[in-house]
């Protein structure tokens, strides 16, 4: 019997099939490593720094090496085709009853390795730790810009996840002058729960998941990975810090390697269980904020940053678009069982 499950944070319902669950082998294998395409010389590889648009915004480099030259571990450059523009003032105006804001923002690419490796699961842990440092550096810097409200960090791995033709590990950071609706829904839901219970909803979810154990994928070094109760997609997995924190950018330096280890572990499990599937990773963290009377009063206590990993195995079609519902043919309990048992 299919079941409607409600996501407690934003109140969204999901239809989960609890019988005839689709096993990993039931999905038509679409391995990213099998995507056939002619690859031009990769502009992200070490030695080709002149192939990316200058300037080099940030890099973790060996001492003595110059920007836009080899000798780096992680490198941040502007996007080749940026969605938003960095220069200018934020102008809000109306067109009749409609609201418009001019396209101010930042669009950066974080290149996560100097070698031509595509899947983050295949990177050495230290590379992932360095990438996390780069994310935090860039998000903190962009947060100082009073025009910007939020920076979304995301990764598209594989064509089905919307990645372009460059098969070299990277993530993108798009900073914007408005808060995105998906985040807004979580912020509102979190604040309402906190007003009612005086507890962080994510902390309660973590406790519930640890108590039941059925959906835990990994619990390592202060980070927990689980398949959410109302998972939208088969094998959707979230990673959260067990210790409450609203801001990803406040992650202490000594905890970054722990996060890197957890992330590598989860991505490796997904790679093995689903034969190298395409996936997206997104980071939800508290928006940039200046303390303002009446605004963001409880956010440090009510919101909890988290990573959402979404393997792209199924399509979102008419029913999903029309209803905002998702139909998930793999119960998260089954997904967690497969993932936790894979070495």
């Amino acid at each position: 019997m299919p079941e409607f499950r409600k996501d407690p944070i934003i109140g969204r319902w999901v239809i989960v099939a609890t019988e005839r669950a689709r096993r990993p082998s039931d999905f038509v294998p679409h391995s990213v490593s099998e995507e056939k395409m002619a690859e031009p010389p990769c502009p992200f590889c070490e030695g080709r720094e002149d192939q990316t648009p200058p300037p080099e915004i940030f890099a973790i480099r060996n001492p003595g090496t110059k920007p836009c030259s080899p000798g780096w571990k992680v490198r941040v450059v502007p996007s080749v085709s940026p969605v938003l523009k960095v220069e200018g003032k934020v102008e809000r105006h109306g067109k009749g009853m409609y609201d418009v804001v001019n396209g101010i923002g930042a669009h950066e690419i974080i290149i996560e390795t100097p070698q031509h490796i595509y899947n983050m699961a295949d990177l050495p842990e230290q590379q992932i730790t360095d990438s996390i440092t780069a994310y935090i550096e860039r998000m903190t810097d962009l947060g100082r810009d009073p025009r910007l409200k939020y920076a979304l960090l995301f990764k598209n791995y594989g064509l089905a996840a919307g990645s372009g033709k460059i098969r070299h590990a990277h993530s993108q950071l798009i900073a914007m002058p408005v808060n995105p609706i998906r985040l807004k829904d979580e912020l509102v839901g979190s604040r309402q729960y906190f007003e009612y219970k005086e507890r962080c909803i994510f902390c309660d979810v973590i406790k519930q998941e640890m108590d039941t154990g059925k959906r835990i994928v990994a619990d390592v070094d202060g980070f927990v990975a689980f398949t959410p109760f109302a998972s939208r997609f088969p094998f959707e997995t979230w990673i959260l810090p067990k210790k409450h924190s609203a801001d990803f950018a406040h992650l202490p330096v000594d905890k970054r390697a722990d996060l890197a280890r957890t992330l590598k572990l989860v991505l490796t499990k997904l790679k093995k269980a689903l034969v190298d599937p395409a996936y997206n990773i997104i980071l939800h963290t508290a928006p940039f904020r200046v303390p303002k009377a009446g605004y963001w009063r409880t956010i440090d206590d009510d919101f909890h940053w988290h990573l959402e990993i979404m393997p792209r195995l199924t399509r979102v079609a008419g029913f999903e678009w029309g209803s905002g519902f998702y139909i998930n043919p793999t119960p998260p309990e089954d997904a967690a069982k497969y993932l936790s048992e894979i070495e």
Partner: protein
Amino acid sequence: MAELRRDPITGRWVIIEVDKVKNPSDYEVETHVKRGGVCPFCPGNESMTPPEIFAVREGGSKPNTPGWQVRVIPNKFPALRVEGNIDRI
């Protein structure tokens, strides 16, 4: 240059590209692969679908036979079930 436009109904922002726009010819189209075989929705193949729920038919033709203009059948792989009571568990 892009513009952020807000949907007044849901409050959702969308980034609309105003300069480097993509025209119909810029989008890659999936080529449809024509496959052979029998179509279960065509007239004459009514026995290949689950029994019909409703049909707009010419007078005299029986359910699950040809002679219909529009036909409603249950989905073979239903997302939801008709039987049972609603339980919030």
